[in-house]
């Protein structure tokens, strides 16, 4: 077992790859599918993503959008876009 592990150690274990992928997609889906706030939010997020993709290749979870209620008559739409590093 120990010897086999030694040879395998350069590759990432399948389980830890699975875990990382899950953490990312689940966090993304929670923020879109389980959002609180207006029903149009996921669609707005998708449209913004589509616009950004016209200019830059970004992942599905590159756009994060949130609506914060700050007091009685102020809501702030918070938009976070992660762009890939310039090559």
């Amino acid at each position, binding site marked *: *077992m120990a010897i*086999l592990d030694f040879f395998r150690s350069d590759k990432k*274990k*399948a*389980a*830890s790859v*699975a*875990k990382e*992928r*899950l*953490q990312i*997609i*689940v966090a993304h*889906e*929670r923020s879109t*599918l*389980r959002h609180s706030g207006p029903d149009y939010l996921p669609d707005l997020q998708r449209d913004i993503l589509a616009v950004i993709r016209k200019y830059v290749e970004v992942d599905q979870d590159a756009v994060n959008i949130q609506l914060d209620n700050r007091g009685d008559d102020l809501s702030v739409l918070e938009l976070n876009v992660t762009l890939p590093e310039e090559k």
Partner: protein
Amino acid sequence: MARIIVVTSGKGGVGKTTSSAAIGTGLALQGKKTVIVDFDIGLRNLDLIMGVERRVVYDFVNVINGEANLNQALIKDKRVDGLFILPASQTRDKDALTLDGVEKVLDELSEQFDYIICDSPAGIEQGALMALYFADEAIVVTNPEVSSVRDSDRILGILASKSRRAEKGLDPVKENLLLTRYNPSRVERGDMLSVEDVKEILAIPLLGVIPESQAVLKASNLGEPVVLDEQSDAGQAYLDAISRLEGNEVDFRFLTEPKKGIFKRIFGG
């Protein structure tokens, strides 16, 4: 008043029906009057797993439509006292279940039973929504595998927004994680998500871990819920989960690889 528990998953084939049969049977073995309701309209399977397929006359949809009364449709288990099955119909009309109809049947069952176990179909459509809508608690059946974990998370979101408790602003549906088809040796080799990994991602209390087991196929071949196979690892793991469901603290078993001889350890297996 009965405790209404939905056994759900999003993803298909992860062990909902196996778990519904095992948990329902186990609760009845503990002396709780229990009915297991098959919500998988058009694809009924619970009858086979419970070994009562030849005794189905009327079904859930017949009761909703007033073509039979509840007692005509309920099948009494011959092995365990206080255990009943309400079969799904084989109709292809997937809108056969209505919220009003389901509510009426669950209300009537609630008067006679301690536990109502709702075996949900896969997916997040009508049938699955009906199965979870009236639930007080959910057992989210998950395999240590990426698509299953993701679908479980979707279902948790739906429980938190589309259930009766969510819509009426009542206490939320109580969530329980049941990890099934767990293979400790693959986890130890780093090939499979561990209990800890899945717990960390889904972040809900762990009700049980059921090992991948030959006993499950055997049980379904025989039509005998696996808890009746008391020697089996899976049967014992289900009994532990049931005990936790009833509020007891039970240590988790079957989380590590059974010790092997030195040769197997060197040469794998």
